[in-house]
């Protein structure tokens, strides 16, 4: 069938899974924070797909963007 490459969502999940290996070496509270931060970037997978940006860059940009929103709103 048509698709031959993984979807953005699949790639992000794979990157996120790799990053989560860091959690085992972290203090539990830091690990929770890492997981939360990685989840933040996942909400923008449609936009990354739409833009055609490299997924790694798009994912990182999405995390930064969501963190920026948290800083701006100050209550999240």
């Amino acid at each position, binding site marked *: *069938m*048509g*698709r*031959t*490459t993984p*979807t*953005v*969502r699949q790639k992000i999940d794979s990157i996120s899974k790799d990053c989560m290996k860091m959690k085992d070496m972290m203090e539990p509270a830091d690990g929770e924070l890492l997981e*939360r931060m990685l*989840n933040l970037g*996942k*909400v*923008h*997978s*449609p936009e990354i*797909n*739409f833009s*055609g940006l490299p997924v790694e860059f798009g994912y990182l940009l999405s995390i930064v963007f969501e963190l920026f929103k948290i800083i701006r709103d100050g209550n*999240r």
Partner: protein
Amino acid sequence: MGTVDPEDFILINATGMDRIRLWHYDHSRIHFSDFDYTTWVFLSGEKYDLENIENQVEKIRGVKTAWESRKSIYGSEKGLCLYLKPSMIDTVKQFLEKSGFRRRIKLFNSDLNPVHRFLSERSMELFRITSPEEYDPVIPAVRIFPYFSGNEIRKIQIDDTIFREISDNTLQEVYSSIKSSVFVIYSNQGSSFSRLLEMINVRGIGRILYKKTPGKAFESYGQVHFSGDRVSIKGKICISSDSFIYSEAGLPGIFEISRVSRLPPETASTVTPGTAVSALEFSKAISMGILIPGYKDDHESPKSLALLRLSDRGGITLQPMPGLYWNVTEIDFSSMYPSIIVRYNLSPETIGHGDYSVPWLGYRISSSPAGFLPLALGDLLDLRLFYKSIRGDHPQYSARDIALKWLLLTSFGYTGYKNAKFGKIEIHESITAIGRWAISIAMAEARRLGFTVIHGIVDSLWIAGDGDVDELLRRIKERTRLDIVVDSRYKWLLFPPARNGNGSVGTYFGLRKDGTFKARGIDTRREDVPKICKDFQFEAFSLFSECNNNSDVAEKSADLERLKKKYMNRIRSGCAHEDLAINFRITRRSEEYVVNTITRKLLKALERRGFHINPGESIVARIVNADLGIFAFDSSAEGYDRSVYIGMLKRSFKPFDYMISAAGSNHSGGHSGKNGLNLLRKNGDRDIVDLYDF
């Protein structure tokens, strides 16, 4: 040559190969007429090779040759035409393979179904109607469903009558029903129907000539299915009840597929929608005099890794933010991908040069003349949109609409299938690219008119707000040239959070403004959930059916708790066994499981009783003890595993718990909830994170 004039009677079937038999129905019985059939295959290539082939094949008895010029979708082809009986085609193909010519020449019209080709060449229409509104011809049909349990036929359903005793009288009833019908719709679970036919023959009730084709497991759209043994009865048209099209659209759906694709009804009932679409394309090509390649050589054009990454992106699925939304409209493009093929003239021969380019990809496309695919699919698309507009609750029009919808759905996927004769991957990529562009246009226009876009899946958008929806549809249609309609208007719509706190794609439920509910991805839609969980969710829906704002929803908290308690008590105090039955769909063999899941335990329990279940089959069972792997398959065994069912029920509660908390977090109206992560933290309840992994 037969004597029946096809104009007088309804053509309902065709069979055969070198001698084609047409089945005509005259409103009381079937008339057969036979035709000797000679067909042809076409070869193009180097003249020297073709002359060599001509010299060789002329020695094969029954093959005649002629030098001709014929049309392909790319233009004219000159070559050698071989006239022969359909049964000879394989001999010629074997000769070409063994003699080494196969790779040096192009072979056309070499692997077509002879019956389908015969009907297409003569523009013969099965189940002919004179206008799309006309009803299907009335043809006698019987449904025979033997119910099989413990390796025995326990009861037989003939149409709506159930016979609980398998006596000679019952078998006589089955025999008479088959004799008086043209269509026999059967269920053959555990070969029960073929056993029934055997019993009729052995006990001397009657004589039925039939043959069996063994069933098999197969995977389609990520799900494993099992098609049981198929049965053909001489002189009857047999449709298995597990046929995909029959289960989706019934007999009228099969009639419609036969009508548009010219596939005989038995074939139409067994093939996938993709095969039916290719049959439709072949039929169109035959009627237009266009050659159909025997071996596909429209390979993917070389492209850079960057272009592959850009082009291979599929449709857009927006990430919903979890929350409770008010005043939501769901709009969707009608048959989006087929419409793109037709409106944007996407076909293998129109790509590569032309007057417009595909967004992002830059492929050039000619907008005229109309390409083969738009021509082949255009009529089908118009017909489907017509039935969609008039169907209402009409059973025949609805069935036709569903059948055509499946054909159109797969027509897109087929453009990217490596063996599709009229497919090309660049067409597939262009369709999805234009689809992404169209949905982005729709989102931009929706925002311009003051709507909030809350979710989107490929060709559908969910938008919240009070803007002018009609104006929105007009603008989108004007800019994209694609039809878009309102699917549903919701008073409220809930997107529960997934395990990671983000919205779960494709999981939502809501109350439409007409008072009906729509749910996707929750327990009411799942097959593997017991009835008690579904009952709870249906009852919970009605609890919120009068809510007009967040405050109304939040006020239902106590009622919801009472409802939850009522259902918990039902499980704790003793529940009817039929409310606890679970439909287990088997996806692999027991030895293929890595983890000892409840399904593996079930398979092991069945194997101990001597039953081997194929992947794709389903088993209905009640869990008596999950740890020990004890199951009940009928009401004779007592008991059930309370902890397992309580766990399932608690999972059914969770979307509604979230609904209350989402409404409670914002009483001012409008959207509430927003980010599931916020709510999880506010509630200080980590457990809730695990709740929404549907």
